[in-house]
């Protein structure tokens, strides 16, 4: 964690439907103060007499006038409760939690791959990258979803001037198919647009260095956020094209702050040892090459 999280009771400033999702703006000034793209918040749901004991986690989708934005899918009972709140409701929020996305090396191209609402934190990341001086054309966004209404951030991405690649499983918008279908084109575009003249800076992430060694042209880094199976598929395609992938994972979290050990994933350390790391505090973003995919039961059908 980069900054200590805070616990705040805040006002829901606004709530707006956005396709299949709802965009919430919370007056969470203390959270907003230090939040960075890739971090998340944990909201308590249902009130003091609710049967729902656990907080729900949501990626921070942006900062707005001293508040934070979230993009929420009504999935089960807790998220549905949240999307039914009215402006003015008081909510208990903890954040910012987890670490931010690792910084993209200045001279690398960037491909951001978002599945469904997973696009939301990546759009904020793109905004920040561009705001900090990166050419918008070096940022390529792949936005995929099951259907058009589940696509998030397409307009926002276009407005930023970034490259936009859209896929839907049912073909209702963009390319019919999974995000992986669009990743090669996005990688190529990012490589094309990335500053040609230079090699990766020595201080950049080792991942970038190793990726660029295998392919022609400047390095490209991939950031992906979405379901676990998507993360794996994207990172495999990216690896084939010589790019490393930063995966923002979404495991079931009982506490969100690092005390319960429910949210772990098997991660291979620099020492080669696989450890079950907490995705809430040690993540939620991991280098795809460190994730031991074959030991994740939800992918191998081990238990569910």
């Amino acid at each position, binding site marked *: 964690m980069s900054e200590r999280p805070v616990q705040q009771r805040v006002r829901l400033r606004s709530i707006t439907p956005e396709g299949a999702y709802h965009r919430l703006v919370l007056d969470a000034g203390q959270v907003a103060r230090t939040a960075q793209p890739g971090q998340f918040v944990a909201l308590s749901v249902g009130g003091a007499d609710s049967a729902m004991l656990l907080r729900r986690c949501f990626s921070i989708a942006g900062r707005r006038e001293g508040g934070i934005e979230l993009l929420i899918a009504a999935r089960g009972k807790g998220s549905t409760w949240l999307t039914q709140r009215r402006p003015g409701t008081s909510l208990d929020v903890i954040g910012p939690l987890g670490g931010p996305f690792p910084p993209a090396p200045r001279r690398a191209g960037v491909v951001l791959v978002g599945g469904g609402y997973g696009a939301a934190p990546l759009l904020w990341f793109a905004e920040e990258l561009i705001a900090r001086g990166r050419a918008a054309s070096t940022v390529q966004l792949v936005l995929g979803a099951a259907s058009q209404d589940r696509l998030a951030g397409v307009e926002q991405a276009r407005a930023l001037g970034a490259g936009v690649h859209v896929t839907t499983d049912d073909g209702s918008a963009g390319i019919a198919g999974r995000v992986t279908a669009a990743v090669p084109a996005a990688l190529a575009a990012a490589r094309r647009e990335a500053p040609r003249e230079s090699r990766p800076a020595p201080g950049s992430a080792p991942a970038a260095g190793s990726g660029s060694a295998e392919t022609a042209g400047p390095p490209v880094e991939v950031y992906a956020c979405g379901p676990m199976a998507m993360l794996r598929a994207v990172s495999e395609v990216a690896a084939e094209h010589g790019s490393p992938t930063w995966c923002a994972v979404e495991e079931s979290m009982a*506490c969100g702050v690092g005390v319960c050990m429910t949210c772990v994933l098997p991660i291979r350390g620099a020492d080669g040892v696989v450890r079950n790391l907490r995705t809430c505090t040690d993540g939620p973003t991991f280098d795809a090459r460190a994730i031991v995919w074959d030991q994740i039961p939800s992918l191998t059908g081990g238990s569910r």
Partner: protein
Amino acid sequence: MSAGERAEGTAGEVSGVDMTTHLGTLELPNPVLTASGCSAAGRELDPFLDVAGLGAVVTKSIARAARPGRATPRMAETPSGMLNSIGLQGPGIEAFLAKDVPWLRERGARAVVSIAGGDAAEFAELAGRLAELGPEGGISALEVNISCPNVANRGLVFACDPAASTQVIAGVVEVVAGRLPVLAKLSPDVTDIVEIARACLDAGADGLAMINTTLGMVIDTDTLRPVLAGITGGLSGPAIRPIAVRCIYQVHAAMRAGALRPAPIVGIGGVRTGLDALQLVAAGACAVQVGTATFNDPSAPERVLGELRHALAERGFARFVDAIGRAHD
């Protein structure tokens, strides 16, 4: 020092209520502790509360060696509760002693270290290592988590069998040799909890911690398979509070009736507010732990302490200890 003198000016005295309590030889400034497995080793709660202000931090059960724990999913939410199946993931005793205990010490927090083993020998070895350090080494007490599987007996948990409980506790008590208070942590999943309590006290435990989670299961109604990779898991949270109150009441009643040696009971189970804590205290607990509620509110242990103190003051108690077991009067 008379009771009257004591009510003033001790460390536990705030807003008129002396919150001091004792676990055997260990004096705690107040009776609200974290619960094992629900606060790691305290550090992650630092942004949300002052660990030194709690009665103690009870650390996640630690084993001899590093353990990866169970596969995921490890949790499922249930009505007013949750299931967990962590499988005692941890760094092993040496890493724990090197990293976690010093941090708690530095912060001025009291550490109650929970230990877990696959057999009595592992428990004894862990206890020996910790007793060696003793209070000077930053360890205030041991909590012996006998609610974990006995490798030798088809994985049956020790706390479900009086003989196995006796064996573990006797081994720990022997090696500790009075250097630290030893608490036996009981499982509610037994026909007669007084019998297990007796086995532990007869084996020399200084006190009891109860209850651990009760075994439960959730089935995913889409896949029709168990949600947890470990199939069953431990049920915790407010849903089980009535079970905790009952277990504490039964054991305390047996002590009052002379059927069991009187000893401190640390109450655990479903505490979310100060009034919840007061229920456990009135049932017979001389301290309480806040577990799952911490996931809902990471400041819960500190908040519960404040609420409990306030509730006692409102009810005219000058000393916390006077509320212990009140429901039996």
